[in-house]
């Protein structure tokens, strides 16, 4: 069992597990932190960004002013943002049999893998994961395609050049593997390879292993995976949460008795308590609005935003924010809000029971109905005419490099009455803000990361008690998992099973010798009775048959036990061997059957019969000896 680690990002993993005869990719995360090295993509022409000075090294030897721009002491690439793909050289990705997705954040690299590596397998994901993952991809493509950039910067990637650049550009690795966003065709093609699964559904892979998703409590449809055969169990824990938010709670008990537990996607904000952050979020929001300022919340279009809206739903009236407009701007805002209401099966118990009434599970339905929350596909169109300030805007992308958020940064950044509140933990907020400096706007950092923290992990491990825990972390590393397989499941067909004769050799332990034909098909093994030889040909040919030597590979039966002298003598007596002379030796006895001129040497661990070529006599004696022995 081997584990290949293809991503260096702690919460956007991409690992490959080789187990039995299968090659399984666990998650397909896309490391988006690379985009922080790029200039933002403005929706409308930004004089500020276009006037940024180009970068020239101090001694003037390197001139990349077309590709690199300087802003507040940092250098950014002026090009369409690029993403850091999972490692593709470590192993042949076309050999991947299946890809298991744990949540919609961890599938964003899927089109790169399924479309460009010769992948021919199947991707497994839950229905909400697929639906929301698709929304995320569509949103990403939309963000990129609506502001096309003619230029594609590559000169800075030259090793010689890169060495001269200031940090952090100087230190980024594998820049040639960075890729632009995929197209919508690639998204559709990639997602057509997804097969939907439900929690606790058992999926057979080539008869060799069985995989099954379990609720992980982190997001809608998020799952951990069990990969098991009859004798081995590997748990893949990725992005799990023990907190009570909107998704179905984490299924911990099914992780028990794992031989290996692969642990990824732990919280990146172990010190930030999500509840506390939520409170801080609300109070900062209210404070800014009361002072007449606007609030910008850069966020993903699904996930924590549902919790934020729910929190605000309870908070709005008590904080006197009833008249403040809340805007949610994203090409997929409407879909995200609508879809969230139809996945009752995947929600926590509280929300689930609402649909029985029938009421929509999330209160944002009511916010929309009462016109407190409005959603728009982009800042263009209806939004520009209906837009009122002061307001609260939820929009993406949280990296602040593309999407409608760029526009609001330019619009509100210069005034100190406005506030930007970061809630997504994926990006360092200082890095995110860097190309907008100098900035007058207030910045509040309330990262809400509900994934497992160290304390919760140790509690979880105590609870489920895996034999081994593996935490892949280094990109491009290969781990040999410490597990040896010793048994495999085999099925004995009823006919054979009925013919077995068990005998008890110790209290509670029985043995039966099995001679059978092994059939292996689709990694399933069965044992069948040995087919009876074809009926012996008529007597004419009988002689010939006798002369036929036995089959070369006849089964070898072992014997166990000992032949007790007294009992054996009695048996001999009973069968007409009366003249027996017993002689004691160092290791046992020698029995001399005088009438038959035969010696039987009895020892603790062996019996030797020496006789003339008298086959009936020999077989009789053989069978008498065998009476005392156990066949194995």
């Amino acid at each position, binding site marked *: 069992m081997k584990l290949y680690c293809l991503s260096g990002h702690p919460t956007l993993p991409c690992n490959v597990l080789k187990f039995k005869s299968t090659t399984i990719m666990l998650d397909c995360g896309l490391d988006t932190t690379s985009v922080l090295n790029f200039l933002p993509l403005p929706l409308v022409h930004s004089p500020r960004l276009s006037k940024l000075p180009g970068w020239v090294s101090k001694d003037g030897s390197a001139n990349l002013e077309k590709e690199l721009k300087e802003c507040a002491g940092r250098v950014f690439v002026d090009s369409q943002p690029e993403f850091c793909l999972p490692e593709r050289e470590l192993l042949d990705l076309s050999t991947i049999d299946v890809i298991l997705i744990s949540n919609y954040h961890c599938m964003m690299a899927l089109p790169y893998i399924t479309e460009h590596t010769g992948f021919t397998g199947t991707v497994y994901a839950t229905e909400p994961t697929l639906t929301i993952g698709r929304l995320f991809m569509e949103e990403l493509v939309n963000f990129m395609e609506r502001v096309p950039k003619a230029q594609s910067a590559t000169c800075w990637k030259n090793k010689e050049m890169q060495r001269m650049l200031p940090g952090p550009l100087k230190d980024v690795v594998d820049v040639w593997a960075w890729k632009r966003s995929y197209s919508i065709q690639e998204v559709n093609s990639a997602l057509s390879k997804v097969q939907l699964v439900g929690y606790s559904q058992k999926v057979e892979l080539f008869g060799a292993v069985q995989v099954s998703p379990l609720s992980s409590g982190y997001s809608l449809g998020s799952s951990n995976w069990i990969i098991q055969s009859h004798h081995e169990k590997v748990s893949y824990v990725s992005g799990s949460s023990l907190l009570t938010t909107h998704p179905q709670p984490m299924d911990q008990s099914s992780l028990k008795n794992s031989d290996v537990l692969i642990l990824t996607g732990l919280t990146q904000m172990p010190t930030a308590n999500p509840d506390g952050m939520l409170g801080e979020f609300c109070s900062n929001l209210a404070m800014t609005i009361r002072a007449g300022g606007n609030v910008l919340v850069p966020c993903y279009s699904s996930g924590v935003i549902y919790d934020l809206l729910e929190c605000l739903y309870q908070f709005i009236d008590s904080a006197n924010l009833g008249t403040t407009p809340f805007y949610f701007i994203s090409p997929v805002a409407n879909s995200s809000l609508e879809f969230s209401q139809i996945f009752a099966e995947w929600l926590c118990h509280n929300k689930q029971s609402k649909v029985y009434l029938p009421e929509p599970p999330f209160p944002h339905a009511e916010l929309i109905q009462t016109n407190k929350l409005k959603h728009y596909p982009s800042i263009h169109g209806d939004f520009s005419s209906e837009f009122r300030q002061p307001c609260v805007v939820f929009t993406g992308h949280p990296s602040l490099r593309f999407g409608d958020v760029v526009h609001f940064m330019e619009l509100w950044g210069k005034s100190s009455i406005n506030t930007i509140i970061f809630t997504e933990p994926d990006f360092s907020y200082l890095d995110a803000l860097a190309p907008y400096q100098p900035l007058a706007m207030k910045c509040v950092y309330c990262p809400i990361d509900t994934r497992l923290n160290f304390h919760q992990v140790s509690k979880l491990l105590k609870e489920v008690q895996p034999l081994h825990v593996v935490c892949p972390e280094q990109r491009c590393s290969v781990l040999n998992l410490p597990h040896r397989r010793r048994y495999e499941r085999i*099925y004995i067909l009823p006919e054979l099973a009925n013919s077995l004769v068990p005998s008890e050799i*110790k209290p509670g*332990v029985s043995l039966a010798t099995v001679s059978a034909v092994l059939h292996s098909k689709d990694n399933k093994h069965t044992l069948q009775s040995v087919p009876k030889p074809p009926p012996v040909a008529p007597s004419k040919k009988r002689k010939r048959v006798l002369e036929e*030597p036995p089959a070369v590979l006849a089964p070898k039966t072992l014997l166990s036990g000992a032949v007790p002298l007294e009992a054996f003598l009695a048996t001999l007596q009973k069968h007409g061997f009366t003249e027996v002379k017993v002689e004691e030796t160092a290791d046992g006895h020698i029995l001399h059957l005088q009438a038959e001129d035969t010696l039987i040497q009895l020892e603790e661990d062996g019996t030797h019969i020496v*006789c003339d070529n008298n086959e009936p006599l020999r077989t009789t004696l053989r069978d008498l000896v065998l009476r005392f022995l156990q066949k194995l």
Partner: protein
Amino acid sequence: MPEIKVTPLGAGQDVGRSCILVSIGGKNIMLDCGMHMGYNDDRRFPDFSYITQNGRLTEFLDCVIISHFHLDHCGALPFMSEMVGYDGPIYMTHPTKAICPILLEDFRKITVDKKGETNFFTSQMIKDCMKKVVPLNLHQTVQVDDELEIKAYYAGHVLGAAMVQIKVGSESVVYTGDYNMTPDRHLGAAWIDKCRPDVLISESTYATTIRDSKRCRERDFLKKVHESIERGGKVLIPVFALGRAQELCILLETFWERMNLKAPIYFSTGLTEKANHYYKLFITWTNQKIRKTFVQRNMFEFKHIKAFDRSYADNPGPMVVFATPGMLHAGQSLQIFKKWAGHEKNMVIMPGYCVQGTIGHKILNGQRKLELEGRSTLEVKLQVEYMSFSAHADAKGIMQLIRMAEPRNVLLVHGEAVKMEFLKGKIEQEFSIDCHMPANGETATVQTNPSVPVDISLNLLKREMALGGPLPDPKRPRTMHGTLIMKDNSLKLVSSEQALKDLGLNEHQLRFTCRVQLQDQSPEQETLSRVYTHLKSVLKGFSVQLLPDGTVMVESILIKVSSSPEDPDSKTLLLSWSYQDEDLGSFLSSLLKKGLPAALC
């Protein structure tokens, strides 16, 4: 030999009060718990005294599974769980769990409040009963206990309808509930994988029907409604609040839109809006098309269909009314029917199956004079039309499902005996498998022949597979040999050597040495080489060696030659072999006894 027993308490050669008991691998499961629309007495509910004469059912049943929310499948549930007594788990899908209590409450109201019956379950009992429900997701494997597992498949029939696979060890049963093999306007088609159950319990409502294409039926339906409206007539469509009603609503809604019709369409009872809301929230259970477009346009928000008020029935002019219940056996549909039955211009369209004993069944059979409660009679003058919109599988669909699941036996329920008989013959002929159709209270027994799962040591398996080569050779089957250790309920198959080691047993060597007398004049050395040549020519495929120390070795059998000093012509061959080479050893001794062939040289 293990067996699976199936006993219908209801729906055995009948439609109504579906309730089937299954015993499999020591587990007892009740499939559905329905009521019969055709009866108002004890026969309304399944006869639970079959399970036990006195007391509660909890200890006799491991679980109860409800396939969908129609009352003939869940109508007796509160009676069973609260009045007879059952506290174990009841499994149903989320939509069924949501809608079932509403229909039960409706049913209760009609029976108790309108008909004034006593000794019936109460609202509280419905609530208590629903507390015992465990929701089931599609394809999720639910472990009822350590041995019993169940899995739901999409059945299509109504929102949330499911087929269930019940599995204990390697034995399994699939119960279809009601299902539909063709997608309709709002639901998808039933699907199951090739799970090869021992028994497939299938409904057979339309066992003998092969229905024409859906499009034709829809066109027919719209034409009839349209003609009646044009004539100024009123059209009554008795439906069940959820299910077919939504499909027909979608159909009429689009037709009204396209034809720009103005006649009002009403939907009776307060359930409409609520029902449509359920469809909205459980949209993942509808068909692909509705799911894809729901963000832009929700199919269940109707523009032309309005809520019905009792007073509207007397309004002049044409109208279409969907009213519940669907078999005209009670409630609003029956009231409206009584009002409209006297006019030839009006029409009633029965879009689904009607159980014997209901007014729906009577008028469909051409009865024109109905006796009502209170000895009055009702003359039926309005047009009666029947259109099969029931989302049941037809004969073709049932055969299709059998082909999909590949069961070893089929058992038919939920159909009429005569029709079942016909289908049974067809199934047995086409698939050459047994088909059963027990009546209520009758038990069908199916023998199963499960394989025994055993853990084989990987070493042994790999060794065997390496020896056996990549492809099996049917002409020379390889026999593998091993020892099965049975200990603490575990079965392990290991090599004999391993078994000795694992169990701490000593090996006992059994050897044989045989003296064979030969008459041969040549010196010992030559005799030996003649023996060698002879054996070499006879034993093809064996390893035969002439060792320098004066022995011939065949596999591990040793052969030595000695001559007695008195008679140099008489030689003694000593054959020595261990018990493991018994066959070969025995063969050699008889072979050599016959002497050596004449010297060739």
